[in-house]
């Protein structure tokens, strides 16, 4: 799941779910990170060390990806709130100073938001390219019996 997907899942369903299955499709481990940070992990009794390693590596990646995007969004949100405050301050003030304040607040909000959107768009494109690259590799690993640990 990409960072964007992880964040969407976090918002919609209330958690990030990471599932590790064997090539036959049998689910071996399932972890859910709740929005407040609590973690629930369900595992089958015959779990191997290799599966634990792979699962934890994926879980860490998801947490990092979600954190990076959340940080950017939160920073953007802070700027947006600051801009909205400046705008409302301008609207409430009569005369020329109020109008200038409103323009200033609006400008301060729009510039970082634009940069943030471009960054998000580029990150998404990069993730898609990475996923397309990794697909044939995963298939090859499965064929070579990389799961049999």
């Amino acid at each position, binding site marked *: 799941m990409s960072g964007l997907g992880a964040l969407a899942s976090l918002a919609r369903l*209330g958690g990030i779910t990471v599932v590790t299955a064997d090539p036959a499709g049998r689910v071996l481990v399932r972890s859910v990170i*709740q929005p407040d940070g*609590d*973690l*629930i992990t369900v595992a*089958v009794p015959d779990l191997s060390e290799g599966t634990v390693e792979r699962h934890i590596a994926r879980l860490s990646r998801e947490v990092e990806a979600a*954190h990076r995007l959340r*940080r950017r969004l939160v920073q953007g949100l802070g700027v947006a709130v600051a801009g909205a405050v400046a705008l409302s301050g301008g609207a409430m003030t009569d005369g020329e100073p109020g109008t200038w304040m409103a323009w200033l607040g609006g400008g301060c909000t729009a510039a970082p938001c634009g940069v943030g959107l471009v960054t998000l768009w580029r990150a998404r494109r990069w993730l898609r390219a990475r996923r397309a690259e990794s697909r044939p590799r995963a298939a090859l690993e499965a064929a070579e019996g990389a799961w049999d640990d």
Partner: protein
Amino acid sequence: MSVKERIRLLARDLTSLEINTIRRGSITGESMPDPRHALFDVASEYNAELNRLLRDDCRVVAGGRTELRCRFSQPAYTAGDEGLVEVRVSDVEAGAQGGAAVVVRTCPAPVFAATTARGGARVARTDPAPRGQVQAACDASGVANIPFSLAEDDLPGVAIEIEAGGVRTRMLVPLRKVRGSLHAFHYLNVRANEAGDCAQPWLARRIELNSIRLATLLETIEPPGGKGCDQNDYSRRHLNGAAERDGDEVREKPADLKLSTTDRVTLRKIWELGCEEILMQTLVQLDGDVVTRLTDDGAREEASTMHRLHSEGVRVATQSWRHLVDSLGSFARSLFQ
């Protein structure tokens, strides 16, 4: 929920972290479904576990010199069924009371009627009058098997009231199936609360607490275009937008349940945990306290892979927690910069 309450909840969530590791024979990879389906899943699972736990449950009530021992003849019933309740009447000194008169009444499930919101709840509970009184006399061994019948429209919470020798008791009728409704969660709460000694007391306690949490949650939710609360009394087929039987009219899926984020997280935790026993649990507090609990199985050396999974889980969860606090900090900083 007030702003103060929200801040308090947020602070509580951010100052503690809980990591649970569960071992289960088979796992499904699916995430929590739509909240109405999730409530249905939770209620069904809790009901099945209670029926298993309380399969041979016998209610013992004493008053004065009389003692009653009551049990249902079957482990569970379906609405519309006929059943039997076995009542054993004895005197604490003289033993079995042959010929003692026993009265049994059927008490319908409580009614949750719309009311002005009080403490968040949008409904008030009233208990309808009992129906169908049956009187019987005990045989020589002090036992009476008294029939009762359930109506087709009986909801979870229907009970049998038994009276003999000046002693009275009320037993909830165990049901084979329940939906994720308000009635079902109140029924599960009372049933788990009344459970005597059972094989897994921790499970009865979990069912009792979580059922009342979910019932309270439903009581505060506004129904789609109606009065009272969203009682969520839908069959699985109705939730899927299918007809109840072949040839019936196809119904629309009910509107989404209006859950707040906090309620959604609560439901998700309850759904994820289900009735599984937690093998290992670690609680991390902001002040640095870390408490780890292991079951007997979890403490064995054979569970070393599970230990590794749990300790790695603790590491990732604390990392995620730190990130969460960092994000909130950077949000606050960006507001003041």
